[in-house]
């Protein structure tokens, strides 16, 4: 388990002290079957998932319609950011697109550890920010017609 956590993209650049704190926030691993619902928008965001294998759909369900798939995230990605900022509620739904596994981190512990140890908190936030920036850039590209004749 700790090996999986150490080799996850989130833990890249963590020194051993920060890794130890990260490990202390772990609740272990979880496995989902294809189609299983993982997060529901509006629910309290108490966990952060570090995907280790498989694919997960981020989706939203407009009233009276079937879910709209917005993005696929994969092994190596982070699932769920809403635990970082108030009101600590999931903004979207997430479902397993394939069988998938993740390391589960306790959001309250992560936030408390960040407050208590700003060095750890800063390392964690920098890493999350990097991954979030990647996701934002990809979302921008997704919004333009990247493959169109005039891209």
């Amino acid at each position: 388990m700790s090996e999986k956590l150490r080799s996850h993209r989130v833990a890249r650049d963590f020194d051993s002290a920060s890794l130890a704190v990260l490990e202390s926030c772990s609740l272990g691993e979880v496995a989902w079957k294809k189609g299983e619902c993982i997060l529901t928008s509006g629910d309290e965001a108490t966990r952060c998932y570090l995907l280790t294998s498989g694919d997960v759909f981020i989706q939203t369900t407009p009233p009276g319609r079937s879910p709209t798939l917005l993005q696929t995230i994969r092994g190596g990605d982070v699932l769920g950011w809403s635990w970082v900022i108030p009101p600590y509620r999931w903004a979207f739904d997430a479902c397993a697109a394939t069988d998938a596994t993740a390391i589960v981190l306790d959001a309250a512990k992560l936030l408390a550890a960040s407050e208590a140890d700003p060095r750890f908190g800063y390392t964690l936030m920098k890493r999350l920010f990097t991954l979030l920036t990647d996701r934002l850039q990809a979302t921008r590209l997704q919004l333009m017609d990247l493959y169109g004749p005039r891209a």
Partner: protein
Amino acid sequence: MDRARDPVALFAPETREVLAVRRETADTVTLTLAGGGRGFVPGQFAMVYAFGVGESAISLSGDPYRSDVVEHTVRNVGAVTAAIGALKPGGVVGWRGPFGTGWPLVRARGGDLVIVAGGIGLAPLRPVILAVMADRGAYRRVALLVGARRKSELLYTEQLAEWRARFDLEVEVTVDAATDNWRGSVGVVTRLIPLLDVEPSRTTAMVCGPEVMMRFSAKELLRLGVPSRNVFVSVERNMKCAVGLCGHCQIGPLFACHDGAVVPYDRVAGLMEVREA
């Protein structure tokens, strides 16, 4: 005189009959034309002439080992491509080629190979995949990443399904918008690159699509650790003469038709960032 060196022959199209037309998407067809590809290398293109309308550079998209026919996949974006796309079996086009540089298949041997295609960019890469499959043992891991706007804009869907079923080829297809009951990956093709299971220093990457897509794909490949000299892109600037004379397709010091269309990314990285007037 050797046709490739004969300046008159380079400008004189030969007439080729359309043998078959396959609709790929609402605006794209694949034409099978009679006559071989004159030993074309994957990545090369021909100038295809719609009589009375004009001529366009169109990549060879078929099997490089077939000597009886050539294939071209054409997306309708204007007058010439509309006229080519409207052809029926029995129709004729003018054809001259093959022109330009090819993908570095020989150089890629013995290493990992990553092929990244966006939209119509899969057309010039299809001969690469067919060539690699005919000589699969020469390469280590081979990954094909395909991006399209939506499911209905994917090319070669039957062949993609066949390729996906193979164990010696990793195929990932992703769309921007999950319409038409799409249940596969959603997101841009560049997002698939950081998750590739390859040895970056031994990887050759071949990227084709619109320039923005190639630029962002190349950036991700470099970030993964693939050396910039091993990343190749196809610079498909609008061209006229196709033989490095008229300058229509010039990008900085390069003539895309002559020095390209396939070039190492490090030769064009700066130029691809420059806006055209």
